[in-house]
């Protein structure tokens, strides 16, 4: 089928997925009998029973669940995602979300860059020196990467690079939070805004703050990427056309770079795209460990408080990101591999 037909088909699928996700999450957060009460996020222990009832009526939690859903849907289509609970000062959910989203984007971009910069060469070296020492070393590093508990690694980094460095008198990296030397007013991305407004101190400080959390995130993903690249390269190096390239008398380096890599990197590129999308939605633990003011940290609090409005917004945005990322990646695949025709 033609390319645009394929894309349209996938987008329709996206709408279906969004509905399914919204219904599921709605039910789980508001209708499920055993869970946290949906009004729990809006009350505090000092309220009287009457006040609690008032809160319930205000938000419409006393209505039947399907009625609640339709009201919610109507509001959402008008752009109103409802208010958050006390944990976020009752601000509108989308305001809270989009205030924090750029920080997560920043973190994800940096983590992806580090992942690719380290993971890719690691995978290639592993494949070229298959079963020799560099391969074994890379393999252990890669597997250690995704065997590492996210919460543990973040803390270890903080311990060494912040605490011990300062104790030992070395220049240290900041341990948590984002930079407070300025405000991201233009694009919302602190580093970018710092550069755009000429506030280089701010941009640099933000960069320093980014190093540890990005590396913590990247360490876990780069192992995965390295393994995939390795497997892909090994597969390609076994192909007949590599023997052919060698038989032409080409230098080995040319054989690897021109013939092997192009083929082997196709799955790696697509995988990186998926990685990035996942990072955008779910670096929760890292954000928690580093007190990074991103969207994952907010989502964590929301889930604990049972704030259905925020959870719904978060889930749906993330579903869109993931499905779109999958779509982009699939289309990209078609461009990279000339054999695939739409």
């Amino acid at each position, binding site marked *: 089928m033609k390319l645009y037909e394929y894309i349209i088909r996938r987008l329709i699928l996206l709408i279906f997925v969004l509905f399914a996700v919204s219904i599921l999450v709605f039910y789980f957060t508001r209708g499920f009998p055993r869970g946290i009460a949906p009004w729990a996020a809006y009350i505090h222990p000092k309220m009287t029973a009457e006040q609690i009832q008032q809160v319930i009526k205000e938000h419409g939690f006393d209505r039947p669940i399907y009625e609640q859903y339709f009201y919610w849907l109507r509001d959402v289509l008008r752009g109103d995602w409802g208010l958050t609970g006390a944990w976020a000062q009752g601000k509108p959910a989308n305001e809270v979300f989009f205030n924090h989203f750029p920080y997560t984007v920043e973190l994800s971009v940096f983590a992806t860059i580090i992942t690719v910069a380290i993971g890719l060469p690691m995978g290639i070296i592993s494949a070229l020196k298959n079963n020799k020492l560099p391969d074994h070393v890379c393999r252990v590093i890669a597997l250690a990467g995704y065997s590492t508990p996210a919460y543990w690694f973040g803390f270890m980094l903080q311990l060494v690079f912040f605490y011990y460095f300062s104790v030992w008198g070395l220049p240290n990296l900041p341990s948590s939070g984002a930079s407070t030397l300025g405000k991201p007013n233009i694009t919302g991305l602190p580093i970018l805004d710092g550069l755009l407004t000429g506030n280089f101190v701010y941009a640099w400080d933000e960069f320093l703050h980014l190093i540890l959390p990005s590396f913590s995130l990247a360490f876990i993903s780069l192992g995965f990427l390295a393994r995939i690249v390795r497997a892909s390269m090994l597969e390609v190096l076994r192909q007949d056309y590599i023997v*052919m*390239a060698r*038989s*032409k008398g080409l230098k080995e380096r040319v054989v690897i770079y*021109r013939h092997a890599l192009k083929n082997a990197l196709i799955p790696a590129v697509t995988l990186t795209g998926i990685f990035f999308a996942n990072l955008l939605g779910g670096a929760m633990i890292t954000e928690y460990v580093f007190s990074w003011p991103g969207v994952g940290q907010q989502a964590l609090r929301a889930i604990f408080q049972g704030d259905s409005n925020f959870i719904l917004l978060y889930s749906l945005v993330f579903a869109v990101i993931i499905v779109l990322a999958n779509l982009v990646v699939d289309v990209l695949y078609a461009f990279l591999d000339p*054999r695939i025709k739409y």
Partner: protein
Amino acid sequence: MDKKQGEHQPILEIKNLKLNFHTYLGEVKALNGVNLKLYPEEVLALVGESGCGKSVTALAIIGLLPENAHITEGEILFKGENLLKKSKEEMRKFRMTECAIVFQDPATYLNPVLKMETQLKEVILLHKEDLKRAVIAEEKGEKIGYEEFLAMKNVVDKQNKNYKVSQKKINEMAEKLILDILKLVKLPDPQRILKSYPHELSGGMKQRTMIAMALARRPSLFLADEITTALDVTIQAQILYLLKELRKKIATSTLMITHDLSVAAEIADRIAVMYAGNVVEVGPTRAIFKEPFHPYTQMLLKAIPNIRNPTTRLESIPGTVPEMINPPPGCRFNPRCSFAMDVCRKDKPELKEVKMGHEVACHLYE
């Protein structure tokens, strides 16, 4: 023709080559003392069943054996030098300038993500010096085509060493020469082919481009590993015809590997018959067909249907090819040979000349 070749020195000589493959189940003794001579400007067909070691021999010559292959004994002499003793870099240069191989299945031997242009040009761009000279010559007004390029090979030109030629001009010359070669292999619309990807070409066209890639490096040694096997019969005929034509123009020594005796009959000057890792008979084509000495060759010929006698019964050779981990001792053909004697089970026979230019490895002829 026989007399002429008897006076020349062989350009390629394989002496007693023994090769094993190291596998989980044991050592596969693939080559058991192969002896082969290839003379300049001739076509030698290496014929045998699947698994007898023909392709392995070709890979050994060009130095592209898989990792688990070990050469235990023997020499491969090219113009007097032993290829097995050469370093990796020397072998690379060998492949670049002297030896070209075309493989069986063009579909898997072409890189699917690179355009044909890249894959063809990269071969010729390796010969920067000669391309430079070609550009200089063209600027002086000479006509430069593939034939002239051929003639430049091995002629050292010290005059224009310091003359600078731009990369762009070199690329253009490369493209011109490639187009010339593509016309030589009878590919229609060469410009379009350059811009295509391999999967957009038909099997016959792909095979021709592979031959073009071989020609681009002006080899003195051309190895053709079952190049017609993957093609259907009409294309096969076309390719063979093309090879015969090229042969007249380009004086390369060719080792034509095939399991099809009729292909050998069509194009070869001499035929070498291989069985289970040994060359068992070698001789001029006519002689092999008229007077096959080795029992294996005789049975091979009896298995070919004869168009003049369509009703004679085809005979197949009893038994199967031996498995090479524990091959039969002595002459490896003895379990299937109707003339087997005691000595055949003990001693391996060596190639001996029985008639002018016609050698056999069989105890019957000692």
